[in-house]
């Protein structure tokens, strides 16, 4: 999976590649879809949510340039897979899930798999997690048509936030938000081979 789906598409951030190799993705997918756990696509996990395509998870992880001492906040735990990948690289992962059932299953799964540096909370991600702010990076995997102002405040100066945009089975773009003092800029990134679609014409 890592070589063919991720490295071949240009992701060369070594900690990300190592983390993707280390996390057993099949432990995060529903039992009826086990045989497709390492397929090159997202899978449904119930409640209208998906576990993202491996490549997208890797892309988002690499996009925040994760470092060992990083403190990362994730909004939308889902299956817990993204949190597990991050936990292999950074020192602390704080993850918030609003849907109680998903929170219960993900936190239990992460605990069972021994991801001790992941702290889960069942709450509204809008407010972020003030107690542990500021964060070096924030990943917002829960669909959000606007960027909650508290999250901007909780992002460290020089920090990065990333938001995937797309329907459940089709992530088309990733929005990278960078904060430098008062200056906040966004960049719409294309995970698709880094090549603008229309250039293929």
């Amino acid at each position, binding site marked *: 999976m890592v070589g063919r789906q991720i490295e071949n598409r240009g992701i060369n951030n070594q900690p990300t590649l190592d983390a993707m190799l280390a996390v057993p993705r099949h432990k995060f997918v529903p039992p*009826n*879809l086990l045989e497709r756990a390492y*397929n*090159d*696509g*997202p*899978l*449904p996990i*119930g*409640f*209208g949510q998906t576990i993202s395509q491996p490549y997208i998870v890797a892309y988002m992880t690499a996009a925040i340039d994760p470092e060992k001492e990083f403190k990362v906040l994730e909004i939308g735990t889902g299956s817990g897979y993204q949190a597990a990948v991050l936990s292999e690289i950074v020192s602390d992962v704080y993850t918030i899930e*609003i*849907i*109680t059932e998903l929170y219960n299953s993900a936190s239990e799964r992460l605990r069972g798999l021994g991801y001790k540096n992941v702290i889960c909370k069942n709450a*509204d991600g*809008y407010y972020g997690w003030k107690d542990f702010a500021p964060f070096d990076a924030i990943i917002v995997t829960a*669909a959000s*048509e*606007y*960027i*909650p*102002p508290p999250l*901007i405040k909780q992002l460290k100066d020089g920090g990065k936030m990333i938001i995937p*945009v*797309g*329907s*459940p*089975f*089709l992530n*088309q*773009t990733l*929005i990278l*938000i960078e904060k430098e003092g008062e200056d*906040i*800029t*966004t*960049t*719409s*990134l*294309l995970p*698709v*081979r*880094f*090549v*603008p*679609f*229309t*250039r*293929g*014409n």
Partner: protein
Amino acid sequence: MKNDNAHLVRLSVSLALLSVSIIAFQLVLIQILSIVQWYHFAYMVISVAMLGFGAAGTFISLFSKYLLNKTDKLLPWLMVITSLLMSVSVTISQTSLFSFDSYLLFADISHLWKLIATYMIFLLPFFFGALSIGLIFVKHVEKIGSLYFANMVGSGIGGVLAVGAMWWFFPEKLPAVVATIALFAGLVIIPKHLRPGFSIIVAATVAALSFFYISSPSLNVSEYKSISKTLNLPGTKIIKRVSSPYGTIEIVSTPYLRYAPGLSIKYPGMVSVNNAAFNNGDWLGPLISSESDSLKYIAYSTEMIPYVIGKRTDVLVLGSGTGRQVNIALLNNTENVIAVEPNKALLNLLSGDFSNEVDSIYNKPSVQIRNISARTFLQASHAKFDVITLPIIGAFGGTSGMFALQEQYLLTTEAFGEMLSNLKDDGIIGITTWIDYPYRNPLKITAAFAEALEQNNNNPIEHIAAIKNWNTITFAIKRTPFKEEEIKVIREFCNKMNFDPVILPGINADEREKFNKLQDKSLYTMIDKILASPEEREKVYSEYPFNIKPAVDNKPYFSQFLKWKSISQLAEFFGNQSVPFFEVGYILLYLTFILIVFFALILIILPLVKIGWKGGNNFWALIYFSGLGTGYMFIEIIFIQRFTLYFGNLIYAAAAVVSLMLISSGFGSLLSQKLQAKPNRIIGIISFIVIALIIYTVILPSLLKTTIIFTLPVKIIFTALLIAPLAFFMGMPFPLGLRMLSERNESQVPWAWGINGLFSVISVVLATIIAIELGFVWVMIFAAAAYSLALLINLKQN
């Protein structure tokens, strides 16, 4: 003789009742499937299920001897079974074993099997119902004119009744109600000697239907629908649910839902929590109120652009929904707002029980409500406005093309032209869209306004401004060219809010990327080309991998972007698994068509084993009855399309048009009973229909456009005059043809009836394909061609 007449009357009443229930059941199923899935998807499930009609024809052909011998005994049984199946099928389809999710069809194979099982489940009530109708027709073919009259009139009444019943009953209760009518149909024709024994069966059926009514199934709504996602939030619940022909409206109370499209990243405060409204599980909008929440965030949105540029007195809000845009206008001190919203049930709620939750906007003296479709309002109005706003286009993250087949008359070039002419000199149209990728919506909007402006001899570059944040673009289209001062204000607003101008007279490349950068900058180059000249624009239309040519009234499918020739390219870039999710609706349309044609062919060929492959009448019957089935259905679809726009109310206009057509055709059929079934007669009638269709193709659109301003009673009389005479004659060729065929070879009658049914079903899907690919005018032309074929085959016979 007297007995015969009494029998015919009872048979006709039974047939009419059964027809009422079958049409009503069809409409109820569409409503239920629209709630659990999506409207157009519902439409397709029904199309496949309607193959039950063709299957019944085939079944009668194959087993005619046995069935026709026992018809009188069988009919009550068949109708009772139909009644039971109507109720049971809905309940079974909602169990976890069968309940499918159209979103998962391409992600989880088990849902494909569930979909096929659902087709089969819904096919059964139609099969048994159609079997009853077919047996009556075939057994009493000499009286086909009168019987077909009962069938048509019953169907016509069924449509109206179902629409009315939707105000009174929730959709999940309706199958049992409709099934009761089918039961009555059976009761009317129980032979005397069977009545004592049958009473037990009837009692048991009544008990079963009562059970299904009281413990109606809970609808298994797709987990990917907006309402399901909202209800997943803790502490969220439905606080009000009302049923109406516009669909089921749900008001959801939630401690977590915040809605702030186009919000500036600079906004420092809080976004308030709102309750929200949903229609058939699809997002309608938030209920926002300045009394209970701070609405300061609204001033930090790209949507504010029309109000930033100048003072606004008169605002027109098209598709006002839950009133968010009305509230924005009022917060900007607008003096007069006209809110146009076709959904009566929603307006009742927001001006009644939930008035306080939306600042009582719909009860304010400064707000006038128009309960009509936005497009009809535009065509009929001569008022001038400072601002015209439209609902946000698309949904955040996209809809996976679930709405690709939706006719959107508010987003056609003609509609944009009408909006421009409804503006004051300094007036502005405000329209916001999500930024999708690959870029589609913003390009199509730019192209549509460019064309609309050019049609008014304006240079688009001077009249269009657009600004973006990280995920939305708001367009401001001005009737007169933007002034220097206005351009300056837009730039200042962008700088203050971290927005970037995308289109602005005198724009430079750098300012487009100051705050919100795009890795794929082709959005700008494409927009520039679209605005540069008609020639450049045409080049973009043909070269771009998606269909971004503006929607027009003839092809009002704004959200249809997929081009077949680009599919391999999409697969290469996004992966095979992703391709269907670009436009699920469009892909499913073609899949349904292939499926229907495949089964229809089998059902047409199968009876030939029994009635023989050769024979002079086979070819005639195939061409004649397929022509009639196709022609009739195409015209029905065209009339629904034309007249719903004319009346501005989709539900009532569609029900009225279809009922008027069917009942008029019923009378035509009744009269045909007195005519001789000869080719000459048929040729004369069909010639009249073809000539009328050619005339209608040419004059109908302009005729309706000119008379749209007339008062409602005048419009109703005018519509009746246009539809009834044509439909009257359209009701004759089918019964005349069946009678003619029965005189030549009786065994072919059920086959011919089945062909007519099968082609009616195929035509519903085919008409949508033709409308999308070629336009509605071509549906009308094909209708005339289908009738011409039926004409030619008779000329040959003659």
